[in-house]
């Protein structure tokens, strides 16, 4: 007996099913593994539509920490990488996972911290000096701790400053394991120093009592590279379309587009594909 209640249940189930629908689209797209700091800076929202409009190729960005992005590349789950860790990138290519590293652009890192600046680093010219002061003052420092490009830069600076942060972890040195935005949130909440990329900092909306304290040291330059994932290893890589994106990025047009991205009226990324040593 098909009672009314059964009919209603059936109708509900059918609506549910109609909602389900198919899950994949047939459009033309490439998948790139990039970093959270790049995404948080807003660069992609600005840059990708320009490329898509020109070529009709959609660019899908999976934004994670640099370590995870490299891993995604090693698994063959992305068509190309868009990261900022030269050593990691070169190893990626050397190990056969990538075809060629193309230098792309740079932005810079800055040291931010509480306005009150207990370690007195404001205006320091050298980042390493600032780090030494922070360690000496045992001032709170929030580290991304996620093996990202930013994190690797930070650890290099500590090493150069001669500070053993592993020993200090849990005390003044807070090892978070988070993206740039989350780390800034934590630093703001606990009035801690941290190393951030300028672009994310400019866009960050929850600064509270944090302020920009140290900038301009050449050591703080953050170089980006793009790499095509090796189709010899992963036949499913969309070589033509991904290469088209890379070619566009390093072309004068692409480089100009990158230079055109501004945050608060200030240029955020500096294209340097043609500069030696990039």
């Amino acid at each position, binding site marked *: 007996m098909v009672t009314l209640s059964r009919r209603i249940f059936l109708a509900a189930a059918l609506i549910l099913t109609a909602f389900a629908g198919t899950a994949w689209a047939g459009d033309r797209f490439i998948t790139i593994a990039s970093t959270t700091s790049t995404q948080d800076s807003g660069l992609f929202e600005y840059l990708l539509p320009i490329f898509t409009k020109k070529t009709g190729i959609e660019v*899908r960005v999976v934004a994670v920490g640099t370590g995870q992005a490299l891993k995604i590349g090693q*698994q063959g789950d992305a068509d190309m990488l868009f990261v900022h860790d030269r050593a990691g990138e070169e190893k990626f290519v050397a190990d056969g996972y990538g075809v060629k590293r193309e230098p792309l652009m740079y932005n810079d890192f800055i040291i931010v911290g509480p306005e009150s600046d207990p370690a007195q680093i404001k205006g320091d010219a050298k980042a390493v000096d600032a780090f030494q002061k922070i360690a000496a003052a045992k001032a709170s420092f929030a580290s991304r701790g996620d093996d990202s490009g930013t994190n690797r830069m930070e650890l290099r600076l500590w090493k150069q400053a001669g500070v053993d942060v592993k020993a200090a972890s849990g005390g003044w040195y807070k090892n978070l394991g988070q993206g740039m935005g989350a780390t*800034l949130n934590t630093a703001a909440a606990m009035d801690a120093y941290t190393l951030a990329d300028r672009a994310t900092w400019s866009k*960050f909306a*929850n600064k509270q009592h944090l302020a920009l304290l140290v900038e301009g040291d050449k050591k703080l330059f953050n170089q980006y590279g793009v790499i095509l994932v090796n189709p010899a290893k992963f036949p499913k890589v969309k070589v033509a379309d991904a290469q088209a994106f890379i070619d566009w990025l390093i072309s004068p047009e692409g480089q100009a587009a990158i230079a055109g991205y501004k945050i608060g009226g200030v240029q955020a990324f500096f294209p340097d594909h043609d500069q030696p040593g990039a």
Partner: protein
Amino acid sequence: MSAAATGSGAQPFMQTIQDAFASALHLMISLNAGLIEIVLLSLRVSLTAVLCAALIGLPLGAALALFQFPGRRFAAILLSSLMGMPPVVVGLIVYLLLSRSGPLGVFGLLFSPTAMILAQIVIVTPIIAALTRQLVEDLWSEYREQLQSLGCGPRRAIATLLWDGRFSLMTALLAGFGRASAEVGAVMIVGGNIDHVTRMMTTAIALETSKGDLALALGLGIILIVLSLGVNGAAFVIRDLTGRHP
């Protein structure tokens, strides 16, 4: 949906809450296209996952309740424990399975809504199955003698008991939906939070939080709660309607 880069001094709690309600209202009233996109995707992913999880979990739970087999008690304990599986762990496992380097890589499902649906199915099925198992067990102990007298053994009883317990089972399905729509760890890993493709309510909230736009994140959270209210409300309306005409 971007935010201004202001911020000198901490925002008092109430101000953030006010801003959150304001942005939620604004987004909803203006029928912001970006919002509608992620709302529809969230509903699609979670509802599909719950539907599939029900198709698996309801008969599974009923069978576990009705049939005797060696290791039955262990299976019941295992099922209950799986309810507490951390979603991010499920995400990791599904990622490794779907990865191009993984056993199911040939399907190319990673970083798509399908991958998110699969992950959520894995998360939700134990909930539905475990709750169904308990309910059917209780119903069977109540009905068993009469059903056996009428010639209805465990096998034929599955459909009957599931239908009879439909109101309690609906609650189990809503519990599953709640878990699915609130989940962020697994869908982040297997979906990649790709703009316009796999960005859902929860991953959007995570993103806005990491950008520091707490008011917007909270506003999205409010909308998510409203969504959940809507789904639960609809379920109860259905229940009432059918309650009067069994």
